[in-house]
């Protein structure tokens, strides 16, 4: 019996836009268990981004409950939410969001700076370890401008791993990358999921990317349209190996 990481019940989110009320989420319920690799799909305007913000504890639902690793998010203050993000969530963004002119190591150390329980040496050790996990051990001192897009995204994944979160939350993490690099990132995600048992929630609009996950939740117009287990999950590694080797880029 595996542990529930996400438990969402009848979640609604409404925004007040002048005199109009925009109902972005109209009642969503699902659960995610530890070790799952879930993609959340949907076209723009489907409520994908709103759901992501709530899952990432950046926003709170208007109505409904959200339990993250057993914590009732609704009851938390702004500062407590920040603390929760720091301990339980690892973000990976589409635009990487690395600090410019800062080494990969220091970028990865960043979340631990906001955790006062971690000493300087432990912070460094964990950051090096996280960079090793994304196969960037030789690039510790490189700044983002010295790294390729795929490498930058891997630094961002290392940053998401370093605080040992219960869930990695990726927002269109392959959106800025070419297909080969996207497959590399997905291969890394699958590896983290299968070998280290990380729970991954991956928001995307590309069905191609979703096929690498074990489960897909399809959003449409603020509701869950489809929630399916992926019977034939593709292996990104195999797809990568099957790509024609070209040297024209």
């Amino acid at each position, binding site marked *: 019996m595996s542990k529930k990481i996400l438990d969402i019940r009848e979640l609604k989110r409404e925004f007040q836009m002048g005199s109009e009320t925009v109902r972005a989420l109209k009642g969503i319920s699902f659960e995610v268990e530890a070790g799952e690799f879930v993609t959340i799909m949907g076209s723009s305007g489907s409520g994908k981004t709103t759901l992501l*913000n709530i899952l*990432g504890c*950046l*926003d709170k639902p208007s109505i409904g409950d959200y339990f993250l690793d057993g914590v009732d998010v609704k009851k938390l203050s*702004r*500062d407590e939410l*920040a*603390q929760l*993000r*720091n*301990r339980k969530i690892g*973000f990976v*963004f589409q635009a990487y*969001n690395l*600090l*410019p*002119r*800062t080494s990969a190591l*220091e970028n990865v150390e*960043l*979340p631990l*700076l*906001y*955790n*006062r329980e971690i000493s300087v040496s432990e912070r460094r050790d964990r950051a090096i370890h996280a960079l090793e996990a994304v196969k960037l051990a030789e690039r510790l001192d490189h700044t983002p401008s010295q790294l390729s897009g795929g490498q930058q995204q891997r630094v961002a994944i290392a*940053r998401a791993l370093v*605080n040992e979160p219960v869930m990695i939350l990726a927002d269109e993490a392959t959106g800025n990358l070419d297909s080969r690099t996207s497959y590399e990132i997905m291969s890394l995600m699958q590896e983290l999921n299968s070998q280290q048992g990380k729970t991954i929630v991956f928001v995307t609009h590309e069905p191609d990317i979703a096929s690498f996950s074990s489960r897909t939740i399809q959003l449409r117009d603020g509701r869950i349209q489809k929630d399916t287990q992926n019977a034939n999950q593709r292996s990104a590694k195999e797809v990568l190996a099957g790509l024609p080797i070209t040297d024209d880029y």
Partner: protein
Amino acid sequence: MNFFNLIRIAYKALQRNKLRAFLTMLGIIIGVASVIAMVAIGQGSKQSIHDQLSSMGSNMITVLPSSNLNGGVRIAGSSFQTLTQKDIVALKKAQYITELSPSITSKGQAINGALNWPTSIQGVSPDYLDIRKLSLKDGIAFTEDDILTSAKVCLIGQTVIDNLFPNGENPIGKVIRFNKIPFQIIGILNPKGQNAFGQDQDDILIAPYTTIQKRILATIYYQNIYASAASEQVTDAAVSEMTQILRDSHRLRDSEDNDFTVRTQAELINTLSSTSGLLTVLLTVIAGISLVIGGIGIMNIMYVSVTERTREIGLRMSIGARGKDIMLQFLMEAILISITGGIIGVVLGIVSSNLVTLTLSWPTIVSESSVLLSFVVCAITGIFFGYYPAQKAARLDPIEALRYE
């Protein structure tokens, strides 16, 4: 987040934009440096005035004859003839006074052969040299014996030497004439230069007062009495003691005003010091304004920085920074800028003060209080002008900040 991490985060953030941090600092650097240099120049000129007046004898007390009401008419003090030998005898008993000298001055022409020079001759007692802190470059001073015999001897100042002995001959032993009376030169006074009022203190001949009284002016009165208080601290006591002695000696009734004035050097020092103190305040205020402008520069840059780094703020919030952490980071950046600028400014201020002394030979004194004050002002400036931008950063919504373009 602990304090060390906070400094680390702020330092790293500044390091990513070194030139901007430095330019922001420049306002503070110039502000602090100018405060320190201005105060140093002000203090230096104040001290030099004090020193100059002290070199005339800081515990010197001067008694002048003065007007009192005479049939309802006030008469100019200098034309009064109230100070006599009797007063000197009485004052010798005063306990707060260590040295005493009457003084009588005559103007006239000093002549050496074909050369002549208009100067003045001052008749005093041997104590006078100590009272006025005069010293001899060469020769000897006259003695009490010379006073008793009204000896025709004199000490000569450098300006008079330059005019009467232009060819560099040794004036000692030479005889010059002053208003037809021959005086033998027995000593040369060390040059003192100009006093605080621009008078040449070396354009003088000094002789026994009895000689001037009997042989030149034919008077029994003195123009001034000079005295030294035992120390600077007892000057006031000495003044009241002398006043009482002179009142007794002049047999003044309680209802009568003094027919003399007792002045101390300290009064003069205070007057001149307060003038230069005012100048210091003015200079410091101007320099202080530049410090405030430097602070506004910090605020401006911090605002720009908050806007420019909106995404960074969003990221930091998404990985667990609380509003408070963001606020403290930006506040710490402002404080680091102002304190680093303050330290550089202090060094620059001290260096430029010394440069002013070296190149312009203006006296400067870098006081610890001005260093401390400008440093504290700096830190406060950092907090004050860094607060609003930091608060703006802390209030950003992480969702919007992350999507900010």
